[in-house]
């Protein structure tokens, strides 16, 4: 659809943001935030990922059908991880069956 050409300036801006965030996530890795370390690291990674998908991969300018396809993929991925963890973490809740 859209013959939207993303400008070099936009690409450069995204590139600079990704570099800064790489520095930030590496630096924060050395700060003890307890259990929040992994949350912050994943939040930064997710934000970087969204930038890549939206601008480098042009999803921000794609058709709704393409956008829905990608959203569906990540929905299924989160189901995969969430239900697997629900299984792993709840083992042993029922006395006599689990370990």
């Amino acid at each position: 659809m859209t013959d939207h050409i993303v400008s070099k300036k936009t690409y450069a801006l995204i590139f600079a943001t990704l570099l800064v965030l790489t520095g930030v996530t590496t630096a924060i890795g050395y700060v003890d935030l307890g259990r929040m370390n992994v949350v912050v690291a994943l939040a930064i990674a997710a934000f970087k990922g969204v930038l890549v998908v939206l601008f480098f991969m042009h999803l921000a300018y794609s058709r709704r059908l393409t956008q829905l396809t990608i959203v569906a993929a990540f929905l299924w991925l989160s189901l995969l991880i969430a239900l697997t963890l629900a299984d792993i973490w709840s083992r042993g809740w029922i006395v006599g069956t689990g370990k």
Partner: protein
Amino acid sequence: MASGTRTLALRHQFASAEQQKDASTLGMWIFLVTEIMFFGGMFCMYTVYRSLYATAFGAGSNHLDVTLGAVSTVVLIASSFTMALAVNSAETGNRRALITNLIITILLAAGFLVTEMWEWYQLHQEHLMPGSGFRFEGPDPGHVQIFFSMYFSMTGLHASHVLIGIGLLTVTAIRAARGTFPAGYSTPIEIAGLYWHFVDLVWIFLFPLYYLVARHAAHG
């Protein structure tokens, strides 16, 4: 019959160049969705084992070289940037810039592989490659070995994608140099770009999940 805009690159089953491009883009994304689920299974396995053996994962992670990891991240992000520039060059019909950007992207991809192989070599020297030669002095070596098995399989799968990407970009660069792509037909470059950005996307998650597990807890 078809009355849409005809270009050299328009195949007869499509009504218009626009429809053809939509079909190509969606098709590539469907393929990438299968890739997301492919890597997703491994990320799921990572999540389970890290939640079970967090301490061993931290101990293993602190044997990885953060500097190398950060450098390879920067190199890969830079290659994604030059790939984006290549797409822009194709769209604006600048063939010379397109070829230059593709070549820089390929070189950066090769640079990424060199840093990663250096990391693997170092781990091999430290006897941290899983198998009969695996030795880990700290506590819980069995679960640390699980960490390294997953590190090598996930970065290995990713590295194989980098290799395929280099092949894909090389073919694209050669075709561009031969003038195979008519002016204004940038779809093949965009599709190759989607693949390359996906490779970058996976690494954006691999870097913090493997290199930054427990940095704050240990030095040296």
